[in-house]
C-alpha cells in the first residue's frame, strides 16, 4: 500500500488520536485527513491544469502536515521550506518551482506570488468540497522535493516519488520494534521539515498511527523548557541527528526518569559516535540505539543497525548497518570497478528509494544518478560521494566524504579518518578537522575538539597531538588543536565546516 493509503487507514481507524502536537497547536488524525481533503480540493480548483510543485513555507505548525497531504492528494508535489532558511534561498526556490501559489503557515511576502497565509489556509481547510482519490499522486509522481544545502553553487532539488516514499516507509515502520509494537506511540519531531531527516519521523509515525511531538526552534534554545515539553509528550521513539542528542545529554536530567517511555533512539544525518551511543545506553537502559545511514537522494536512510555494547568496545567506529530490503549497496573504486569484499570504495545505492534525479537539472542528475541493469531488472542508482567498506561482520562502515579528502604535502589525507581517531581519545566528545587555507593551498590542518573534562590548556592540546601521533601518521596530525565548548552546527544539525574554516 502506498503512503496516502496507509495514513487513510490510520485516520479511519482512530480519528481522535493526536497526529501532531507542538507549541503551535494540535491536530487529530480525523481533522488532518478531513482538512487536507478540503485544502486539496481548494488547491485543485484554484490551480486547474497547473501541475507545478507548490512551496510550503513554515515551521512547526500542525497546518504544515495538512498542506503536505493536501498537495499530494491534489496530485501535486510539495517543496517544504523551513523558516530557518535565508530570504535569498527562499526566493531562489520559489522562482525555481515557479508556482504562482505558495502555502505559508508563517509570515512570508514574495512579490509576484500569491501567498496563502494562515488566515487564507484556515478558510481553505473548511472548503465546501473534498478532493477525489482519483486525483491522488500516482506511484511515479513526485511526492516532495527537498532542496539540499549543497556546499557549492545553487541548491539542488531532490525529487522523491510516491513510490520512493512508500517503499521507504514500508521499511522504516519495521526498523527496531515492529510496526505493530510502534502503533499508537509518540515520536519526537525535531528536524525542520525542509531536512529529509524529518521524513523519518513524520511519515513513519503517520503511517503507523503514532503521534508526532514537534519541538520548535524556540524550545531548542532553552534546554530545560524543551526537556519538560518532551516529558509532557512521554516520548517513545526518538529521531534526530547525534548532535541534537548531544545537546540534550549535556543536561543531566535527560534520562529514563524524565522519559520513562523511551524505547528507541534513531539517528541519521551525521556520524554517530561511541560516546553518544554509550551515554544513551547508560541513561536509558531499556531503549535501543539505532544507527542509520542514507542521503536525501535515497529518501532518508537505506541501512540500519542496533548498536550493542560489543560494537562500542570494538576497536573501530560504529557500523552504519545493513541495507534494507529493496536496496543494494555497491562500493565503487576510483577506477570505476566494484571493490572486492572488504575493500573501500564510494558508496553507490541501488534500489526502490533512489530518487529519479534533481528537479530541472539534468546535468547534475547525470553526474551522480544512473540506471543499472541488474539481475532483477533495471535499477536506479545514486553515487553518494561517501566512502565506505563492508566489515567481516557484514556491516557497512562509513569512512568519510570523498570530497573531504585533501592533498597536503603530497599526501592524500582523509579528514574523516583524523576525526575518527580524535574521537577515540579519552574525553573527546566531538571533533572536526578542517584545512587552513592560504589562497588555494593548504597551510596546515586544524582540529576542533569538544571535551567536557579538559580545560583546553597547553598540556591538553599537547596530549591530543601526542596521542594522535601514536594512532595515525605524523603528516596527518593537525598542527593546530583548539578546544571549543560545542562544534558550531548548521541549521540541519551537522557540524558547520564552513564556519569552522573561518575560525581557524
Amino acid at each position, binding site marked *: 500500500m502506498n503512503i496516502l493509503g496507509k495514513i487513510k487507514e490510520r485516520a479511519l481507524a482512530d480519528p481522535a488520536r493526536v497526529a501532531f502536537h507542538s507549541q503551535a497547536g494540535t491536530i487529530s488524525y480525523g481533522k488532518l485527513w478531513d482538512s487536507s481533503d478540503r485544502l486539496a480540493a481548494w488547491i485543485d480548483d484554484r490551480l486547474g491544469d497547473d501541475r507545478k510543485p507548490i512551496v510550503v513555507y513554515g515551521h512547526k505548525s500542525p497546518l504544515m502536515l495538512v498542506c503536505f497531504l493536501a498537495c499530494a492528494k491534489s496530485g501535486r508535489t510539495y517543496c517544504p521550506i523551513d523558516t530557518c532558511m535565508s530570504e535569498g534561498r527562499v526566493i531562489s526556490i520559489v522562482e525555481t518551482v515557479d508556482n504562482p501559489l505558495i502555502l505559508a503557515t508563517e509570515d512570508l511576502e514574495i512579490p509576484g506570488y500569491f501567498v496563502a497565509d494562515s488566515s487564507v489556509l484556515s478558510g481553505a481547510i473548511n472548503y465546501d468540497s473534498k478532493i477525489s482519490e482519483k486525483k491522488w499522486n500516482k506511484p511515479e509522481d513526485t511526492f516532495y522535493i527537498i532542496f539540499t544545502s549543497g556546499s557549492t553553487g545553487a541548491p539542488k532539488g531532490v525529487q522523491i516519488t510516491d513510490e520512493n516514499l512508500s517503499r521507504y516507509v514500508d521499511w522504516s515502520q519495521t526498523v527496531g520494534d515492529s510496526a505493530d509494537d510502534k502503533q499508537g506511540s509518540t515520536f519526537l519531531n525535531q528536524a525542520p521539515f525542509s531536512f529529509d531527516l524529518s521524513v523519518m519521523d513524520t511519515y513513519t509515525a503517520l503511517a503507523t498511527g503514532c503521534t508526532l511531538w514537534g519541538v520548535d526552534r524556540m524550545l531548542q534554545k532553552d534546554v530545560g523548557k524543551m526537556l519538560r515539553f518532551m516529558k509532557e509528550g512521554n516520548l517513545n521513539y526518538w529521531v534526530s541527528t547525534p548532535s541534537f542528542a548531544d545537546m540534550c545529554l549535556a543536561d543531566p536530567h535527560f534520562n529514563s526518569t524524565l522519559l520513562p517511555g523511551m524505547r528507541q533512539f534513531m539517528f541519521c544525518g551525521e556520524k554517530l559516535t561511541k560516546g553518544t551511543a554509550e551515554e544513551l545506553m547508560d541513561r536509558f537502559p531499556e531503549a535501543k540505539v539505532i544507527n542509520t545511514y542514507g542521503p536525501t537522494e535515497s529518501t532518508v536512510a537505506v541501512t540500519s543497525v542496533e548498536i550493542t555494547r560489543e560494537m562500542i568496545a570494538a576497536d573501530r567506529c560504529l557500523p552504519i548497518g545493513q541495507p534494507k530490503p529493496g536496496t543494494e549497496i555497491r562500493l565503487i573504486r576510483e577506477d570505476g570497478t566494484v571493490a572486492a569484499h572488504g575493500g573501500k570504495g564510494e558508496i553507490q545505492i541501488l534500489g526502490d528509494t533512489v530518487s529519479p534525479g534533481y528537479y530541472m537539472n539534468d546535468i547534475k542528475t547525470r553526474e551522480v544518478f544512473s540506471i543499472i541493469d541488474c539481475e532483477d531488472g533495471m535499477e536506479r542508482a545514486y553515487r553518494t560521494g561517501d566512502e565506505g567498506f563492508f566489515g567481516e561482520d557484514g556491516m557497512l562502515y562509513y569512512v568519510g566524504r570523498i570530497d573531504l579528502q585533501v592533498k597536503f604535502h603530497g599526501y592524500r589525507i582523509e579528514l574523516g579518518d583524523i576525526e575518527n581517531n580524535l574521537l577515540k581519545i579519552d574525553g573527546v566528545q566531538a571533533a572536526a578537522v578542517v584545512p587552513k587555507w592560504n589562497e588555494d593551498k593548504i597551510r*596546515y590542518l*586544524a582540529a576542533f575538539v569538544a571535551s567536557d573534562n579538559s580545560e583546553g590548556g*597547553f598540556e591538553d*592540546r*599537547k596530549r591530543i*597531538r*601526542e596521542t594522535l601521533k601514536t594512532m595515525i601518521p605524523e603528516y596527518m596530525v*593537525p*598542527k*593546530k*588543536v583548539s578546544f571549543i565548548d560545542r562544534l558550531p552546527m548548521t541549521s540541519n544539525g551537522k557540524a558547520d565546516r564552513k564556519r569552522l574554516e573561518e575560525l581557524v
Partner: protein
Amino acid sequence: MEEKLLDILEDICGDEIVKEDHDVNLVEEDLMDSLDYTELLIAIEENFGVVIAPSEVTREQMNTPNKIIGVIKSKM
C-alpha cells in the same frame, strides 16, 4: 616587533602557548619542525628585513620565543 613576531610564531607553530610562555622550548615541545623553521626564517626576513642564515645560528640559539627575539634584536 615582539608582538608581530609572536603572531608569526603562533601562526607557524599553531599553538597560542608561544604567546603565553615566551620560554617554551619549541623543539622539545614539538611545536616547530625543520619545515616550520625554514618558514620562520623567511618570515623574519620578510617582516623585519633581518637575514638569518641557517648556518650562522644553531637551532638551540633559536628554540624559544625569547631567544628568537634576542637574535633578531641583535641584528636590527
